[in-house]
């Protein structure tokens, strides 16, 4: 605990499991997972586009489900498996979604890409054979201003069995 002006700032040691590694550090309890990932763990692949939960650029996977890390307190997700874009590759092999996004031209400025890919992964894990409309619905919380979504949807659909 530390006193800053008239405010009392509570710090706690928290432990996070990110991309299969355990991290232990001291931090203020009010900090978001997004802040901790970017500023304490150096995992800047998770992007801050609005800090309000409206753009999806900060999407990460927690126990395989997509979460907006800007609306998630770091202290609340201790003991859970967190995956960021940096941890998506397996044994040095990029995830098929990463390959598809690269090869189909689904990436322009790339700022929405990490969140978009993680959202798509969580979705395809649940629904491996979606329709185009279902794909569009699944990523509708992830905003992209560059691509018009066309090639993103194509990239995701290229991994389905339909």
């Amino acid at each position, binding site marked *: 605990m530390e006193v800053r002006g008239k405010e009392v700032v509570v710090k706690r040691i928290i432990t996070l499991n990110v991309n299969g590694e355990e991290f232990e550090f001291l931090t203020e309890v009010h900090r978001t997972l997004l802040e901790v990932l970017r500023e304490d763990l150096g995992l800047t692949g998770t992007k*801050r586009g609005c800090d309000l939960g409206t753009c999806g650029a900060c999407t990460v996977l927690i126990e395989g489900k997509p979460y907006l890390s800007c609306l998630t307190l770091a202290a609340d997700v201790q003991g859970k498996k967190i995956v960021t874009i940096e941890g998506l590759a397996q044994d040095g092999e990029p995830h098929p979604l990463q390959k598809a996004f690269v*090869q189909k031209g689904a990436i322009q400025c790339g*700022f929405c*890409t990490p969140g978009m890919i993680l959202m798509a992964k969580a979705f395809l894990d649940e629904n491996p054979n979606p329709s185009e409309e279902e794909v569009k619905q699944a990523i509708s919380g992830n905003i992209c201003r*560059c691509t018009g979504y066309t090639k993103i949807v194509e990239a995701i659909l290229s991994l389905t069995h339909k």
Partner: protein
Amino acid sequence: MNKLDVVGKREPMLDAWEKATGRARFTDDLAFPGMLYGKILRSPLAHAKILHLDLTGAEKVTGVKGAIGGEDIPKKKYGIVPMAKDEYALAIGKVRYVGDEVAAVVATSLDAAEEALSKIQVDYEELPAVFDPVEAMQPGAPVIHEEVHNNVSASIRKEFGNVEKAFGESDFLFEDTFETQAVNHCPLEPQAALAVVDPSGKVTLYASTQIPFFLRRNLATTLDIPESKVRVIKPKVGGGFGQKIDLYAKDFCAAFFAMKTKKPVKFVYEREEVFTSTRQRHPMHIQLKTGMRKDGTILAQQFKVIADGGAYNSTAPLMITLACYFIMLPYRLENLLFEGYHVYTNKPVGGAMRGHGIPQVRFAVEAQLDHVAEKMGIDPLDLRLKNAFQAGAPHPAKLRVQTCGFSDTLKTAAKGIGWEEKRGKLPFGRGVGLAGASFPSGVSNMSHISSGAMVKIERDGSITLLTGAADIGQGAETVISQIVAEELGVPLEDIRITAADTEITPLDPGTFGSGVTLRAGNAAKIASQEAREKLFEAVAEKMEVNVKELEARNRRIYVKGSPERGMSFKEAIKFYQYSDRPMPIIGRGSYQPPAKEPTTLLKEDGNFSPAYSFMTQAAEVEVDTKTGKVKVLKMVASHDCGKAINPMLVEGQLEGSVVGGMGQALYEEVITEKGRVLNPSFLDYGIPTAMEAPSITSVEVETNDPEGPFGAKESGEGTQLAPAPAIINAIYDAIGVRFKTLPVTPEKILQALDEKKKE
């Protein structure tokens, strides 16, 4: 032309892997030891005098390392157009809109910086404010900038031909009024800057910018230090669309505080600041009168355009000029009278945005043309084809159009949308529409007019390319590298590119006016040729052949037509070295548009761009008559891009631009009330999501412009000129209502359908 190996190929962007794996570094991803965090205090009032600014409370907050107001900085105005500089990095004396910069602080943490902002005391004297540009022009309206009468900070009145006479000769006259809205660019990456000062006192600024060299100049000016003391590095930039053309308070403040504290300083804007305090598309009020001959010829047009500029100029004179001149493309128009005003109001500031002043007037022209066609009993497609500009035709303003695929874009877009089968033939609630446009491929300006490039051939056969071109996500680095690879006969993977570092890379104007591929691409092409010639000279000597007989391809240099008579690229380099020729093997290139007297059009007519692209958008829509919602089912984007250096990237440009244009037709608007932005978030603003995105077909019409590298012209920016009118014209085909105000929201549709019922 020979068969091409790299140009014309669907290559993924060179940095796509970095971006897909989270390794790409944007400005806010960078951090330095001891870094301070900055925040900016913004005006809560639309128009007020700053009577007193008290920073002492802020300075007392633990962790705060500095606090400044407008009185603490050099009194140097900045602006992107030299003749229109009207802005200080922090307000001096008064604030002119809600969100104007009043003070800035830096602290050891963002929390401390935010707390410090709350401790700053400002005494304001509120002034009468004006929010409507027409009111702002009236005598007696509040004066926003002391030296500007009637708040008109830029204006243009140009006549080509004789409009009065042409109206007299017209068989039909049409008069309409149109309104367009404020639109935010919404790059996903908010504006950011990080400054570091080295022991010599030189400041390095990492910034989310489209224009590193202009930024360097504006920074040097506002900091009042020599340009040589400023270095600007552009990391990855998360989209710009024109919004990252200007210098912002974050750039100045990061550099200023870094110099003052000798510590790295970072400023990152919040999303709300991006909406309220950066730039937006100018809302326009447009009166348009058109004279038609019976046979469908557009004889004359007269415009009165009032652009709501908000509190500052940014690109004002250029914006209103572009709006004027690009009325005369893509249709033949001999008689034009254009009166345009850029007017200050106490609102967020207008600036360059994808299309830059042209989409608004293009919406007016294209929407009215459909009405004209209907009244005259001509098919809107035929009317456009009849008036389509053709390559080589004389232009009233002396634009030199060497290639023009406009008619082909009209035909292919119409075919793609099913014009013949669908126009006027779909059931009520469904409809198709189309609209055309033209855009420059690079704009002339008097300061940084040429692009430079340097190509260095390394010992291992790889190529180092230095270019000042600023890739902001559109793929400029990839496209320019493809051009270099093609010229040197090596695969794309052999090219390593360093781009946009004012200390290292050659001068380049940056990313605006759609000139990057043509200008920087040509510079890189010339540099590659020069480097190649040097290598050829060594090879020619060794092989005892004429230099002109050699060609480079597949990592080999050989006698044309006889690939076996030659040597590998690496062997050639080795031989070059061993024969003691000047090292390193470097080619330099520069490209400047070929006009003898390059014109900005601000003062005189002339050729403005090396080449002009042409495009047609066609839309099919479905209107839900119960909810008023419009669903865009399909868009066809047909684009004369000269030559697609990378067709996959061109498609990506078109698709993104089309969806942005659709947003502006149907959803997007920065809504203000007494100058305050009411919807500064993605949740409330109306940016299209994947759910709204239509099926998009891209058609590339290739015209191989002689001025473009491998024939290439603009793609992507001009694309955003025509989606809105195409959709509005499709809505008319669907429900028989002509909309003249953007965006066409469900409320407007329902109201119009109600009124229609009453008729």
